[in-house]
């Protein structure tokens, strides 16, 4: 049997809109993945550090304040500096399509908007393999 995936969930930025991420945390857990939810107000540095410490397969963040470009770029940069290529960086929030395309170019995975089905998010993370990036 394959090892269960380990996911770091975090809410970067200063706001407290965690209704979405809480629901996703419990859905991932119910799908037998190992979930480490860091909570609110996490900086990119804190998130990457936690991902390394926990040997995570996936980093998933929720951003609703419009700061997604800054945050995702920083996380990607930090991973690059550390030479890490096997971690999927994904997430969701209010992220316009154009920005999603740009983030995809720098290696960010699929991003989910409000109204996305839980099943879709869970199966995307479950079926993701490092080579598919």
């Amino acid at each position, binding site marked *: 049997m394959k090892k269960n995936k380990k996911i770091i969930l975090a809410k970067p*930025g*200063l706001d407290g809109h965690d209704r979405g991420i*809480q*629901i996703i945390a419990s859905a991932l857990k119910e799908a037998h993945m190992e*979930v480490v*939810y860091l909570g*609110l107000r996490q900086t990119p540095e804190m998130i990457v550090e936690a991902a390394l410490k926990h040997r995570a397969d996936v980093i998933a963040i929720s951003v609703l304040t419009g*700061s997604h470009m800054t945050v995702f770029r920083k996380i990607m940069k930090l991973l690059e500096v550390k030479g890490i290529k096997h971690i999927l960086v994904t997430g969701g929030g209010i992220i316009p399509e154009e920005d999603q395309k740009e983030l995809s170019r720098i290696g960010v995975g699929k991003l989910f908007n409000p*109204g996305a089905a839980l099943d879709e998010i869970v199966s995307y993370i479950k079926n993701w393999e490092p080579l598919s990036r």
Partner: protein
Amino acid sequence: MRNSLKECYTPSGLPTGHYYKKVGKPGEYPFTRGVHRRMYLRKPWTIREFAGFGTAEETNKRFKLLLKEGQMGLSVAFDMPTLMGFDSDSPRVEGEVGRCGVAIDSLKDMEDLFKGIALDKISTSMTINGPAIVIFAFYLACAEKQKASFRCLSGTLQNDILKEYIAQREWIFPPRPSLRLVVDVIEYCTERLPLWNTVSISGYHIREAGSTAAQELAFTLANGFTYVEESLKRGLSIDRFAPRLSFFFNSHLDFFEEIAKFRAARRIWAKTMRYHYGAQRKRSWLLRFHTQTAGCTLTRQQPENNIVRTAYEALAAVLGGTQSLHTNSMDEQLALPTEKAVQIALRTQQILMHEIGVTNIVDPLGGSYAVEAITDRLEKEAETYFHHIRKIGGVVSAIEKGFFQKEIAKAAKRYQFEIEQKERIIVGVNDYVLEKEPKIPLLKIGPEIERKQVGRLQKVRRFRSPKKVKRSLDRIRQAAATDSQNLMESLIEAAQAYVTLGEIIDELKSVFGEYRQKPIF
């Protein structure tokens, strides 16, 4: 919850024989039917659209546009750094300056925000909580510069910290010192700003976080009672401060339940203020409230449909007797609203107010078997919650135990489950889906805003007197460390010396500490 609604209501749902005693007439105790005898015939609700982005100068322009278009009061949206008490040049705020509201770092920004707008002629609502008292000091210092008399200032400071711990999570300090700051504002205004609403006790965010209507009602009122008790402990007289407590509710999709929720809220508040806390003045019994349509019911899919959702929610608020109203813009699941989207939202209210006749009859649903029965049910459910909250040691203790947070998380999960299972149809999301989504124009806020605001802030830092800054901060620290001292005066003095929000909050953190909450899922 939809399954708690009956299919058909009959007179058996009405309080037999005691209708007038239980429900009352509009403008009479217990105010189930509204706070005024003639409601909107006397005065329509205030159209108050929440606005703010970028720098103070840009938001000032949007304010003037809204006023020109017929808006009746202002409502300031602050950006996240301001809401959390950080300056725009703090390393913690990169990427968030001016994004979802206006950046206010010092009195200078407040001056520009209200340039050409006379503060004694307009009412202003300010949605801020953690650092509310500091932003309020900036506002008062700004009014003083305009030579406006404090006695003529009208408006509302949200200043409701309890719901931050419960739902919105934008706290700075731990609950106890935070409550003291809330009461400092109440005490100061009771003396000097008789027209100012000192707290806007908010259910809006509790509902947005995923609560049910009954939870929104119960938790909000429980918070209200806590502010009353804290003010009484301070030695304030109930009939002096209670008339200036105001409320803020969400208007969600379930039309009749929402209307009933507003009616139940008025009745519970009136009863409790009169008989439990012994308030004598009629004004102390009145629950006056602002309503915002539910942001969480907007969909990213087929965004134009949101105009319709918002219109129905607005109608529920008006039939529930709201005193002021914000209607959301159709594009808010995608970005901050464009001018066009804001204009449609504003027009939605104007059509409601002038074209469809709802202002001509006072509480037209009073006596409806269904609405009266749902009102009673919500009142009972709220009472069950009050009892439980008391049993576990009151609101602050319930927060510390994570009680509200867990209840809301459960309800949010259930709601999502209903959508996933199609037990609840959301048009365009889980049914009536379009293959290709329409594209609508979106407002873009560029990174240059951050640089511009940091430049403005650094200019303020260069031109002020460092000696005055230090003296002000020393005074704040001393006042903060003395429980019996009201912080307001020292904060206004600091504002006048152009001490920044971040500097003041850091000083207060050194006395009060910071709060952390364990994530729940």
